[in-house]
């Protein structure tokens, strides 16, 4: 299986993110037809002016949220990796919320069932809207590649700068 280009998720770049929350609004419009960040599947955090990041589901391998659910209400899609919530089974107990290290699965303020990023059928609106291009729809393999390329580029620049 060509897994390297599959299972894309929404990844935020803290160097680029300015904490503007446009992603939250874009998500709530797409999914809930209203403006309300508390109903967004991606949430931005500004710790201080220099540390901003938007966080959404990272499609963990062997996801702890699924394992934590006592009612088998959560299931990971084999195909896309998203977490599918069976709203009939979910009773909002919140064990999955505690199990998630990223705060990416949340309790919906109205339905009182959990909700999580579903990647907008492969075209995430938050990525489309982000004015800073701080959100990437990508896979973990590609992220690792990018990190390697950028570190080697840096080394190359250093080498070119060094006196001969």
């Amino acid at each position, binding site marked *: 299986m060509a897994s390297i280009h599959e299972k894309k998720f929404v990844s935020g770049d803290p160097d680029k993110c300015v904490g503007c929350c446009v992603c939250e609004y874009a998500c709530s*419009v797409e999914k809930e037809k*209203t403006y309300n960040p508390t109903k967004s599947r991606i949430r931005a955090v500004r710790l201080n002016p220099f540390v901003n990041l938007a966080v959404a589901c990272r499609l963990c391998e062997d996801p702890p949220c699924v394992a934590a659910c006592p009612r088998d209400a959560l299931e990971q899609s084999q195909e896309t990796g998203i977490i599918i919530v069976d709203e009939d089974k979910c009773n909002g107990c919140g064990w999955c919320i505690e199990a998630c290290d990223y705060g990416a699965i949340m309790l919906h303020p109205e339905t009182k069932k959990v909700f999580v990023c579903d990647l907008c059928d492969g075209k995430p609106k938050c990525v489309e809207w982000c004015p800073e291009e701080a959100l990437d729809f990508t896979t973990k393999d590609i992220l690792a590649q990018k990190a390697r390329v950028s570190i080697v580029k840096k080394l190359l620049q250093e080498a070119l700068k060094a006196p001969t």
Partner: protein
Amino acid sequence: MSYAKRILHVDLATGKTEIEPLKEEMAKKYIGGIGLGMRLFLDNSKPGTDPFSPENPIVFATGPLSGTMAASAGNSYAVVSKSPLTEGIAESKSHGFFGAELKRAGYDAVVFTGKSEKLVYAWIDDDSVQLMDAEYLKGKPPHETEIAIREDLGDFYVRVMAIGEAGENLVLVACALNDEFRAIGRTGMGAVMGSKNLKAVAVRGTNDVNVADLEGFTEFIRMIHERMKGPATRKYRTLGTPENVLVLNALAALPTRNFTQVTFEGAEKVSGEYLNERYIKKIIGCATCGMRCDHIGVVPEGPYKGTTARVEFECLWSLGPNCGVDRLDAIIEAIYLCDYYGLDGISTGGIVAFAMDCYEHGILTKKDTDGLDLRFGNAEALVEMIKRIGSRKGWLGDVLAEGTMRAAEKIGKGAVKYANHIKGLELPGYDLRTLKTAALGFSVSFRGACHLRSGAYSPDLKGKVDRFKIEKGRGKIVMDNEDVYNAIDSLILCKFSRGVYYDGLEDMAKYYTLATGIKMTPEELRQAGERINNLARVINIREGKGTREYDQLPPKIMSVPVPDEGFAKGAYVNQKEFDIGLDDYYEVRGWTKEGIPTIEKLKELGLIDLVPIVKKKIRSQTPKKKGKGGK
């Protein structure tokens, strides 16, 4: 529709609250923001109320776009009250995150009246409104207060606007800050909060904000986002407003040393270029904005190493060139201290510059300054003076905490000659001797000296008019700009984004209608702007301040010719051209020679209920028949 249709009244003395519905007619007439805020202020106040009296209401108003995804407008709120500085109408706007949260909590406006016995903060949690003990926050700077309240309430997403020590000490130029760097800056609103023992307002809103046409509105925002990546916002995204330093300096319009010179020999060292290269660490943005403009500066070395502050042109100028200071590290420290104490940076810089001018002229001596060498250019003295003003420390600190106008009266010995204010509010960073459309615009502004009431410096800077004279026609330029700016401040669009509304009022009216579902034509929106300006004027008249004698310029602008060599040498505003400007402005406004809105004008604007206020004034002025001119 994007209005919450609810106005919250909070009595700080009893903690009692009341909800009043916002009627659609009122919403359309006054839009929101400063328009709605001023109408609510008028309806909830008595004439002649002392600004620090419990009876002086302080109104928080969101805009019709607040809480939506509207780029740079979804995050805003305005605060309106009676100003302790001008004793007339006060208004200020701020962006960040607070305004959106307030709208989501379900309010178009909150009217605070009364005075709490102890220091409290108001905790607005959707429908639940409580006054919480804030004694433990006494003396804390606004940002620390924000963090403490968030921890206290155990919710990271609570948004807080708070005053600092200056507001608690009733320093007249005190501001309030939200989201660390965003200020309700001008006209002393922090002091009014302090007089009510209201340390902060904390808010959490979880309701939906719906618009009338979700698809159309979202598409409109997408277009605005695209435009925000273009030339209209270039300045704000790149060097930021400090780009103005070298621009104004080259045009001989950069007020230097308390409006003595119009060029600064240290301009390069405090320029936007120099700042960005050496000090700016990150540029961040407000909620929903596609532009980002907040230039966060950090001092890398020296005595102020590590100091962090958001740097904009106005404060950089007021605490830099205006005080003769050419050290950016000290300017960043000074801006930080203004935020720390909760002081309006523009006014505070103006006050210190005034004190420095007095010191240079021997009106203030080392005895008065407790040994401080308050020369222009002394960065350490600037930093020390801000601390003294913020905490009202020492005789001079206490006197200067009253603002330039009152301090000049207290100091005496001819200090008024160096007092640069209009109606009691300190001047921003445009030299009015070489920008004369701006001079007229600043003089008639209802909240006192302000570049953001009409933006009348713009035609001067762009070369659309001869900026070295006032002539017939400038009145209309000022009026047209004012009306648009009133609409902007009532929709509460960010003024940095004004250039992205390519079709001006037409774009803005469309924005309004898509959000609210209330039909609004560009002409109706313009008229709303005109209505709001007249409303503000009538409020000032009610307070005994709104007439011609208060539309004045500082003595330096009117009598001290520009000393700098070059094309600007000798420029100043003479009484004759200034009178031509005022006459012209009043005429196009449909006001009397004394600057009072006529009964016909008020009727035309649907302000018939304000006629008695104006009638009384016109009648009281008839027997005198003194004509024009200041006192």
